[in-house]
């Protein structure tokens, strides 16, 4: 069976959608179709990928307007006669075709104060209990696909990249702040530099996360709580009022 795809082709300066048709088989994912297009029609079609199993977070694109991993999106999720549109991530600049420039994200990570772990026990071990590490293990499942960064309206629609570090790095911060052996205090930075107050808990990031991390509920909200315990945050104030927390 042949299927139709509309793929964005171009670079920083200009571009357009081009339609391709390739034969598809049972079980194929969108990334397979892109590879077929490369082999048969456009060997210079740029796309990122590595693991082809949802583990590396390289193949982030927008499929029919939704941010997704191309390697984990099956073609039969779409109607057979439907033309599938594939385009690069919108919230970041384009390099070429389906490849976006994520370098801003790599810069953000450097701003975060790393783990400051307390001294080891006398026998040379660190002790932590499974129940105490489980919540940060959830955040550490992150494969840095940056789909959440793409969908967060603060970064995407308002382009407030200078004010908010984005959901990916909020959970990175959470994984450090909630680390049982960490001795640093990042709360002031989370408020001032990283812009925790910018998030108004729309949960769009959580909805797109391929690792099903509860970014907002388990990561951002608890961080905001910690900020509120120290400072004032209007969104959190309202949130607490509505949900009668505390």
């Amino acid at each position: 069976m042949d299927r139709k795809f509309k793929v964005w082709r171009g670079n920083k300066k200009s571009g357009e959608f081009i339609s391709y048709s390739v034969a598809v088989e049972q079980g194929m994912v969108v990334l397979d179709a892109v590879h077929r297009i490369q082999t048969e029609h456009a060997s210079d079609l740029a796309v990122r990928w590595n693991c082809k199993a949802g583990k590396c977070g390289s193949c982030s694109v927008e499929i029919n307007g939704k941010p997704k991993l191309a390697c984990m999106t099956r073609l039969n999720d779409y109607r057979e006669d439907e033309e599938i549109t594939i385009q690069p991530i919108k919230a970041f600049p384009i390099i070429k075709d389906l490849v976006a420039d994520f370098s801003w994200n790599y810069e953000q990570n450097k701003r975060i104060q790393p783990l400051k772990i307390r001294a080891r026990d006398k026998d040379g071990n660190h002790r932590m209990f499974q129940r105490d590490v489980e919540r940060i293990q959830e955040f550490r499942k992150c494969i840095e696909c940056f789909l959440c960064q793409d969908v967060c309206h603060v970064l995407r629609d308002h382009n407030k990249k200078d004010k908010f570090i984005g959901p990916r790095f909020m959970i990175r911060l959470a994984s450090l702040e909630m680390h049982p052996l960490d001795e640093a205090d990042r709360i002031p930075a989370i408020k001032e530099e990283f812009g925790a107050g910018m998030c108004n808990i729309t949960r769009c990031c959580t909805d797109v996360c391929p690792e099903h991390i509860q970014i907002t509920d388990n990561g951002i909200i608890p961080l905001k709580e910690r900020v509120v315990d120290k400072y004032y945050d209007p969104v959190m104030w309202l949130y607490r009022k509505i949900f009668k927390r505390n």
Partner: protein
Amino acid sequence: MDFSDIQTVEHDVLVVGAGGAGIRAAVECAQNGLNTGMISKSLLGKAHTVMAEGGVAAAMGNVDSRDNWKIHFRDTMRGGKFLNQWRMAELHAKQAPERVRELEEWGAVFDRTENGLINQRNFGGHRYPRLAHVGDRTGLEILRTLQDFCIHKGIHTHMECTGLDLVLDNGRVAGLVGYWRETGRFILFKAKAVIFATGGGGKAWRITSNSWEYSGDGLGMAYRAGAELIDMEFTQFHPTGMVWPPSVRGILVTEGVRGDGGILKNSDGKRFMFDYIPKIFASETADTVEEANLWLSGDRDARRPPELLTRDVVARAIKAEVEAGRGSPNGGVFLDIASQQSAEFIKRKLPSMYHQFKELAVIDITEVPMEVGPTLHYFMGGIRVDSNSQETNIPGLFACGECAGGMHGANRLGGNSLSDLLVFGKLAGDGVTNYINNLSNKPQINNLKIKEIITSATDILNRDEGINPFVLHEKLQETMQKYVGIVRTGDELQLGLEKLEKIKEDVGRVYAHASPQYNPGWNEALDLKNLMVTAEAVTKAAFLREESRGAHTRLDFEGESEEGMKYNVVIRNTSSGMVAEKRHREEPPKELSDIAFATLSELEGESSGS
């Protein structure tokens, strides 16, 4: 093009590769005060290491206190059929625990034991629960930890920058030429030393768990510069890759499934591994279902189930079952954990396997068995290095991680790669530091060589017509799959070599769309050169080894030969082309061979060494 104004960057040392081995090496170099550069084909954090699932092997004895480095060493030598470099296996077993603890110090959050220590799980060939892990995403934890740590160490990281070839000065390293994927522009790295940490070359096969990056670049670049490769005939086929749907064929199903109780069954519903227990492991393997079940329930006196025999044994058994007509509908066998463990347990210990099957094959592994079959997974062989310094036979060129050879011998145990990366990544960093500190004069760059490297890369873009690199790659994969598979014969290998000769000619005629900017066709064409070196080296080495040992099985030479233990196959670049030769192995140090051949009870209960 004027080659004198090519972008030039200077470092003391350039690390090629940003997987576990590369980053660990770069961290060591930077901490030793070297100006350190690191390049990788992909973005930071995407290297192969991120895909590793099951765990990292280190005899910490947290779960079973009888474990110690000697038993880990013994397991590794026995798994490698005694072809490992003794000293490497020793260093590895001794230093792995400290490397794992250090990762914890840097932020890794491993699963815990009830006492709050790092938890360890069972894996094939390991006598005791030895693999520190995080569910089935251990590689992600390790790579992310290293990534987050290294960005504060002043390492100059150049992402999506691919190395093409080394530049030498009088036989020693002077630098490397590479190109930026984004722009297609070339870049010269001047460096006193280079560390290759480029990973394996599994992409020469059709069914593989490896990604596009695994085109054997380090092997190709090192070989062309005159470095020797070792043990290339030993390619590991992991017994359990996905077989359905066709587009995901080869994607890995972690050995952790079997470590946590999964069993292998054929189409008759028979647990067939009991029929395939080799003599050398018979005394340590359960021979009844009852005993295997006792082991799973935690009985310390029960022996291990046969599903946890080494990978070569399990992969061949699966192949034999399929060929005898007892396979699953899509040409594999059944891997069943649903009947052995609760749904809750499976989702907690194997979450990414659960999702992988659910999303890619629409199968719920907590209810039905998976279909699995062998997939090309890992290169035991690689660039030959000195066991202590990781230096190759080219002064200033070092190698570590999967692209280096010697540590694993004829077969690698699961979990021994992640530990290998950490141990030898660090040692390579120390080796380089030592080399640079003793360097009397700076190497000079040879412009002619730069020109040659760049011209050979741009020729591909300048042709008006030629061969499609993707199609040629598929042809290479079919050839290796067919002629250099799990079981081999001299005739087939010979035929394979003839086919490879033809493909090699075609590689000289590949062409790609003219623009070099982020152009996968061109990138693929450049990789092909290295894939060819890799494929040819494996085939020639496999032809020369006339016996069956570990991962290398010759139908025309069954069983291990006495002579086979006395040599390693070494690949060299000579004026008349690639040559495979037997290199005599030195006698092992007595204290090590005593350990390797000791009985378990002699080693148990000894406290772990440094």
